[in-house]
């Protein structure tokens, strides 16, 4: 089927595309900061749908989104390898931190302030509450890979598999006085109302890379490939990278993301 001709002018008049992303980029406020500038620069409107990583990728597979901004590198590469996406670009990174109660019952800040493997081992040994995303998200995948590297499939009452978004999980850990693994951006944006604090950080295994991928335009004729490409070009541009690097400094005293487009 052909696109009906009368829709074509409308398309140009108000061009927009769907950006599927994870809740961390939306909830941290980064996209609210960036997108108005993007629209101003290009005249294109980005419609952000913030969902779980799994769903974001699924939306790409289905051709329901035009471009993805997610953080699950292995899954992203598989996505491109399957022909669902065109090409993956690094955009920015931040890092994961292990947060937990000030009292630190597992003693991780003593034993392993910058070694996540030792920290997880201590948590497992002491059977202190650990709240997991449990939702197959990028963060969850990262967490599982750490458990895997210490040869554990975590289970038991202390291991709380929540199946919820990052914000909710941080609140649950706060309420249960437990530990969790979170991306720094989400933690910082919520740090005000909670009592749990970063205990483990700076381990290179906690690196959290975000990537951008245009969905394969051959999926269906409704995909706005031009919009997607314009967004990718823009977010990898120097200007956007600079904005990313500055975002959060005024509010949190440090940037939430570190731009690293090549």
């Amino acid at each position, binding site marked *: 089927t052909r696109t009906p001709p009368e829709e074509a002018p409308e398309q140009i008049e108000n061009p927009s595309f*769907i950006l599927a992303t994870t809740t961390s980029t939306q909830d941290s406020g980064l996209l609210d900061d960036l997108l108005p500038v993007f629209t101003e620069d290009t005249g294109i409107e980005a*419609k952000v749908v913030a969902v779980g990583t799994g769903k974001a990728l699924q939306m790409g597979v289905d051709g329901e989104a035009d471009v993805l901004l997610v953080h699950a590198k292995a899954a992203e590469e598989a996505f491109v390898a399957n022909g669902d996406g065109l090409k993956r670009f690094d955009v920015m990174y931040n890092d994961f931190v292990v947060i937990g109660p000030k009292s630190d019952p597992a003693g991780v800040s003593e034993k392993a302030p910058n070694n996540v493997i030792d920290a997880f081992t201590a948590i497992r040994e002491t059977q202190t509450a650990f709240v997991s995303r449990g939702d197959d998200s990028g963060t969850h995948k990262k967490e599982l890979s750490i458990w895997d590297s210490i040869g554990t499939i975590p289970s038991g009452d202390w291991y709380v598999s929540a199946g919820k978004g990052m914000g909710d999980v941080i609140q649950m850990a706060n309420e249960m006085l437990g530990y969790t693994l979170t991306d720094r951006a989400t933690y910082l944006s919520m740090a005000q109302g909670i009592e749990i604090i970063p205990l483990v950080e700076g381990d290179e295994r906690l690196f959290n890379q975000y990537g951008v991928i245009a969905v394969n335009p051959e999926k269906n004729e409704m995909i706005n490939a031009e919009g997607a490409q314009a967004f990718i070009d823009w977010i990898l541009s120097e200007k956007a990278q600079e904005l990313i690097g500055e975002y959060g400094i005024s509010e949190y005293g440090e940037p939430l993301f570190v731009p690293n487009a090549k």
Partner: protein
Amino acid sequence: MGEIILGIEEAFLLLISFNKEIYGIILLSLYVSLASTFFSTIIAVPIGTALGMRNFKGKGILIRLIYTFMSLPPVIAGLFVFLVIMRKGPLGHLRLSFTPTAMILAQICIVVPIIVGLTYNGVKEKGNTIRDLGKTLGANNRQTLFLLIYEMRIIILAAVIAGFGRAVSEVGAVMIVGGNIKGHTRVMTTYIAMLQNMGDYSKAIAVGIVLLALSFLINGILFNLQQR
């Protein structure tokens, strides 16, 4: 608990801020839930009325099914509508995904069974009496239907109020088909869910209070109609 007090304060601040974004969200919420309630009413009241008065084979099962669909989880309704209107879905060419229209469609799926079920239940008791009266006084079919709706207004409006309550408060369906896109498909409930997820409890409660206040207004209007 401090968040609740703060929330009440913030609700006032939100309203008097005349912030364009927040008013946009409120208006879209109203538009979506009123539209879905309106269309659901138009669809459901005649069906519920007819069910209340006609007898046919399999009616018992049908009623039970309708009652069952009162339990339709909004997420499932949303997912269903999403699969139908998605780009590669059967109605993909209409380009409805992530639009207010899609949100209205999904809510209609949720609200119709509620209004049908409650209308049916009210009508079955005295619907036949009223229909017979209408006939004997010379009303044609259309006039009899209006007479029925007029006489059953207390029950029908309660059904509509219950349906509106469901529409305006649900988040699962509109989140999926609307996507909570800022400035485009963000409504009060999706905003609340997002704020809640961000840990901004007091603002979430503030928006919740605004939602309840609006609902109070709308229900006041419906209630006045009912008491006539």
